[in-house]
């Protein structure tokens, strides 16, 4: 289905204001990389001025969408997810949560701030958790085509078994946004858990790869997310026809696609953290992280 692209918004003027002058001749070395070799910013605390960004983005009257999937026992995470999002996610912006679930009655009603909406969208459940996981790409792309492209400007696709702990703001907005997986940011690319079987469409050869991105966070302008999820879905379908399932399901396909369609902005592991790991000093502010949980029971 051909999606009509809204087109670039022209640069709106920023209101005059006082803030410190950027220091061109920085003497201290940065601990985390701040720019990829294809000139995409890597977002972490200290690389941006939140107030300045707010002043640039606020007047654009944007609506930011969020998709989460709460299927089977995962419905229990919705309350905590939404409550923490209400506290930390895109404060001051219009937000629309799309909660996909096989059991709408299990979704609690959470009090939302002004300009913020939640829609509960029924989907089919599956007996295998891998099946649920690989259908997300298809569901998201269909949802954008049928509805979301009219309602939102930017979309983030997030895992539901997570919680916001610190502000997540317009510094994350970009054409196509990926987040670095917390388990692999200090690991050489040969050790990334890419799909290594050439039969799969998610196959990544030995010398390829930039970062290992997490499947729990990705996003961007709604048209770009549509292209991206559709592309991943096609790859997943082809694999299904060939009787193969990629090593980490849709995360493998996401990583394959981000090599050939590089993200325009990369979020540091501050935006996708695993609380079980000790926090290294160079990650100053964890904003979104996993809840400690019994994965085996959840997936049964």
């Amino acid at each position, binding site marked *: 289905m051909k999606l009509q692209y809204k087109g670039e918004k022209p640069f709106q003027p920023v209101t005059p204001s006082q803030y410190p002058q950027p220091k061109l001749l920085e003497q201290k070395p940065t601990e985390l990389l701040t720019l990829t070799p294809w000139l995409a910013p890597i977002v972490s605390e200290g690389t941006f001025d939140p107030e300045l960004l707010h002043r640039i983005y606020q007047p654009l009257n944007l609506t930011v969408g969020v998709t989460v999937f709460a299927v089977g026992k995962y419905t229990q995470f919705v309350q905590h997810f939404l409550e923490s999002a209400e506290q930390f996610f895109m404060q001051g912006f219009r937000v629309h949560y799309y909660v996909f679930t096989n059991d709408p009655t299990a979704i609690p009603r959470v009090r939302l701030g002004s300009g913020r909406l939640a829609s509960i969208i029924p989907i089919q459940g599956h007996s295998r958790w891998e099946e649920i996981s690989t259908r997300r790409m298809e569901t998201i792309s269909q949802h954008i085509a049928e509805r979301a492209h009219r309602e939102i400007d930017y979309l983030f696709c997030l895992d539901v078994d997570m919680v916001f702990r610190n502000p997540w703001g317009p510094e994350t907005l970009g054409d196509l946004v990926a987040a670095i997986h917390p388990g692999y*940011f200090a690991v050489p690319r040969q050790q990334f858990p890419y799909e290594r079987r050439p039969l799969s469409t998610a196959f990544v050869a030995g010398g390829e790869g930039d970062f290992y991105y997490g499947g729990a966070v990705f996003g961007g302008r709604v048209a770009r997310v549509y292209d991206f999820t559709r592309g991943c879905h096609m790859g997943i379908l082809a694999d299904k026809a060939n009787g193969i399932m990629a090593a980490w399901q849709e995360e493998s396909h996401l990583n394959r696609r981000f090599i050939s369609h590089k993200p325009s902005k990369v979020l540091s592991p501050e935006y996708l953290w695993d609380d079980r790991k000790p926090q290294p000093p160079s990650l100053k502010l964890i904003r979104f992280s996993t809840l400690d949980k019994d994965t085996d029971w959840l997936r049964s």
Partner: protein
Amino acid sequence: RDPFWLCLILLFAVLLGFYSASPSTLSPALSTLFSSLSERDCHLDTCRIPEVPRYQRSHLWAVSVRVDVLVMTPWFAPIIWDGTFDSAILDAQFRNITVGLTVFAIKKYVVFLKLFLETAEKHFMVGHKVNYYVFTDQPANVPQIPLQEGRQVVVLEVRNYKRWQDISMHRMEMISNFSQQRFLREVHYLVCLDVDMKFSDHVGVEILAPLFGTLHPGFYRGDRQSFTYERRPLSQAYIPRDEGDFYYAGGFFGGSVPEVYRLTMACHQVMMADQANGIEAVWHDESHLNRYLLYHKPSKVLSPEYLWDEHMLQRPPLLRKLRYVAVPKNHAEIRNR
């Protein structure tokens, strides 16, 4: 026995060299720590057995290639210095685009065209389609120079002005007119340059963005109070002393055609307003450019590698390349004649 000890020392030295050779490998101890942390719920058939760590390129804990300079503004615009970008990746991302270059050769300035175009052929957007838009009052004096495939010179005849300041300022009007009339249909990006310059190193797609400006070589070190912004509130180009990010050069700016159209149209309109109020900004179109880019932040900023004057400035070590540099000229001779 001596050769044995020598071999041992040599081996030790080699191992030391291996682990410390690349700035982007972690010390062995640290990398073992993190690879054990990377284990998680693992299906038996997809568990990876870690291989010996080897040098890799993109690594979040890599020491930034440039630690001596700022490589990103607080609004996420990359600041382009040598070492910050990979041309192979970028050329692939920007394949199939056409870049328009605007240059003004009015009155005596036609003399600069030959060297400008010849060096552009060697260094500017090599491998991509380029349209050189040469604005001139003497089409017959535009030199014929051999061009690479996919590149052409388009001569646009325009009027001249008596004062060099007016010639400089009316570039904004002319670019905005032609943007609407033809650039929008012919190219994806516009790069607006001064003509009394030459290319001396690579200037490629790393500069392309919806809107970009270049750091003026005379002011990249300075404080905003010392920038030669227009300081009289009566002028439309006025910037107060406590505002300002950088001092951008009037001789190298650009972006997508719609954004360059907006910028040049806006600058032309405010220059006309100033003229009606009997005021002319201290650095003419450059003053207005600076005001525009303060309130419409550029999406990329080019370092002074992209605009330098070797005769006026001492080259500091932080400038690893000089890509686009001033050609010496006699100001009195060349202006207003």
